[in-house]
């Protein structure tokens, strides 16, 4: 079954035809060829494919593409300013060593953004909880959590 959907992707209005079995991850990566969102397990277990749908962090690999009809979707490509200036979370991940192989990074940053948008001053426990669905094999999470804490401090100062 095919259906035409419209939604806003990283600020751009989109209207396109999707198949009912497509996941949002498939729509982004294979159809639109926007590959910043990563496929880690394609069964909702690792969080590498996390994007924001109407501000909520979701696993795009198990999220039906049809369900973004009328929604606002933000992926990792939508965070930095057009000038290239990084989002405070991206900057913090760079400066605090929150990135090693980088494959979990887009999902990790989107999950952190979902948290900070809702709760700008989270405790360390709240950060750990919000990122518990995002697996990283390289960092042991320490510098990732430091980065999210730092980004939250920067945002509250501004």
């Amino acid at each position, binding site marked *: 079954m095919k259906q035409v959907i419209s939604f806003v992707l990283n600020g751009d209005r989109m209207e396109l035809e999707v198949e009912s079995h497509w996941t949002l991850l498939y729509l982004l990566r294979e159809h639109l060829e926007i*590959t910043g969102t990563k496929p880690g397990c394609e069964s909702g277990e*690792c969080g*590498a494919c996390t994007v924001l749908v109407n501000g909520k962090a979701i696993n795009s690999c198990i999220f039906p593409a049809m369900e973004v009809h009328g929604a606002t979707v933000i992926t*990792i490509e939508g*965070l930095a300013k057009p000038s290239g200036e990084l989002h405070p979370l991206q900057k913090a991940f760079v400066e605090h060593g929150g990135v090693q192989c980088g494959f979990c990074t887009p999902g990790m940053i989107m999950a952190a953004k979902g948290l900070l948008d809702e709760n700008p001053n989270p405790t360390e426990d709240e950060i750990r909880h919000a990122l518990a669905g995002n697996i990283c*094999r390289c960092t042991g999470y*320490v510098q990732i959590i430091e980065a999210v804490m730092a980004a939250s401090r920067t945002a509250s100062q501004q």
Partner: protein
Amino acid sequence: MEALGSVGKRVPKLDAADKVTGRAVYIQDLKVPGMLYGKILRSKYPHARIIHIDTSKAKKLLGVRAVITAEDVPEVRFGLMKDQPALKGQKVRSYRDEVAAVAAIDPQIAEEAISSIEVEYDSLPGVFNPEEAMKEGAPLVHEENKSNVLKIPWKLVEGDVDQARKDSAFVAEDSYDLTWVTHCCMGTEGVIADFDLRNNLTVYRNTQIPYLAQRDFNDALRAMGLKGSKSRVIKPTIAGGFGSKLDTYAFEYIAILLAYVTRKPVKILQTREEEFRYTSTRQPAIVNIAQGCDQNGKLTFRDISMTLDNGAYTSWGATTPSVMMMPISSLYKVPNVRYEATCVYTNNTWSQAMRGYGNPQATFAIESNLDQLALEAGIDPMEFRLINANEPGEITPQRFKITTCGLKECIWEVGKRLEWEKRKKGAKIEGRGIGMASLIHVGGGARVYKSDGCGTIVKVDDFGTVSVFTGATDIGQGAETVIAQMVADEIGVMPEDVTIIDNDTDVCPWDVGVHASRTTFVAGNSALMAARKVKEQILKISAGYVDRWKDKEGNRHETKLDDDPANLFVRDRMICSATDPETKVSLGKILRGAHYSQGGTMIMAEHFYDPDNENLDREFKGNLSKTYAYGTHGVEVEVDKETGKVKILKYIAAHDVGRAINPMLLEGQIYGAAAMGTGYALTEQLILEEGKVMNANFRDYKILTAKDVIPVEPVIVETMDQDGPYGAKGIGEPGCVPSAPAIANAIYDAIGVRIKSLPITPEKIVEALRGKK
């Protein structure tokens, strides 16, 4: 001059901006025009004869471009002992075995085609336990060998262990059991193979060994009858390695065969489930160990025998005893050593390298047993380790030449931060305990092949920016950044002026691969020496240079640099005279002058660095590494005696790193490795039942999540190694080596029971506590 440089500073990773914006391109993201998608059909049985394969339905499917079995293509054998073909025709020996493959225009059609292939098998009895596999009459995995025991006689002997045992005041003896664990790189493995019209092959692959893989692929081309064809390996950004990509695998050769048959690029990307089922694991080991000491606590001997489950075929797993020998012979001073290891074929998954390369298994047994021995001798475990700690200048029983060694400092640092003495003398806190364990690892390369080398080309362009072509491979650890820092400091520019090119075997010089924690040391030295040659060239053309310039008012000036290159240096992109600090000319200007002149010159240099370490000889002795890395981890745990749950309250990780080139990336290696080591200790196990993986997903294979973050406190001990670049040694693997024994020792201290198999699950603890009562 060094203080102005970037070495020793927390320089962010050069590729971090690309990674945080989603710009970095991994094999998952890569498409080549006209590309087909390959899929592989694996065996339905752990051990069976193939009677017939019917591919007729698959061939008829719309969108299918090729279906191949062993009958359809030339035999391409691979692996350390070339004991398997890419496609199995006669017999399958594990659930991993590849029996057919398809290429189709999209992955769904490929999947459908695979499931329509019918294979008739004649199931054979299997053998799934290495000790069973050694028995008379056990099913033979490879009949032609007439035995399941591999013909690799691992044996290291020094001194007289039997006599030393007789003479020892105290002896501790036990057995330890290590199981399968797997790498869990966040990006799965994948490959794209593409032939051009002259049958030259390009392979896009997330590999740790681009140049050895290139050789393997060239061998495959020969096996396919393509004389004169060559291969080229291009690496996309690599999403984790941890040893998993140190070999070439059947899926790569299958992609090559499919690409050859279809004359189209073919991509094979493993799903997460395939990654769990078909990635070679860290190898399981059954370890018998005895150690002894004299009245004063000095170690007298170490006697270890091991049985290793090789699985159905041989990859690097079978060679890990060569690295296990390192802690067995050289962790602490022990004069008499005996070690024997037997690798045995079974119908299980086959194993290979994983972070530490056998060291975590061996060190778990040694350091657990060392606490048992200290207890026998009535000596505090920390004191016991200090009595026996290695020291600079020592030559170990395996003939390792210990240069720098900060082991004692590491033990002290851990003791201080855990308040060891106070805790041991004070009243016991119910359910809590502290423990420690140390490690030795290669820190200055490892001569496991005939070469341990790495090449670098450094080129400086018109504007003073530097291109470094290195054989090194960045798998996320930050090799690119560390190399850029060293080159920038050596030449006198900024790290951001340096571009690293490391992704193409047609462009970059040779390297043996990213393994053995060797990249900072070997690739670093190589880059540093090439950069030094470039700097000498720059200073040579700068000597006597006359810079004519006008100021704002239009007055003409002349700046003349010293005529002697020895009196010049480069700092902050300027050539400066040592004799007169005010006399300086921009590097870019001098470089443009070199190009824009009659008889001009290019500023470019190469260096191949191969440390003068030694291959192990026939007795498995020799100075394997140019220097050795040491470390000690100390842990405080709290154990819930009712539930068996272990909580890590403190985790100190002290490492002798020679010199921290980039403390932030270095700490990142320690945090990540300690988390991996803690997973090995407490939660991770690939569960196999009669050869079948039962937990091929992240729900059931439990690696640590953000909720389980352990409070690792890295302590960097700098010993300034004389052979290391800026004094550095390797750090990639060491951080995961002593975690499991440190945790096991702390658990013993907390509850008085010793768990001798990994992972130390709550069930095992509760059961052991019941047994104690």
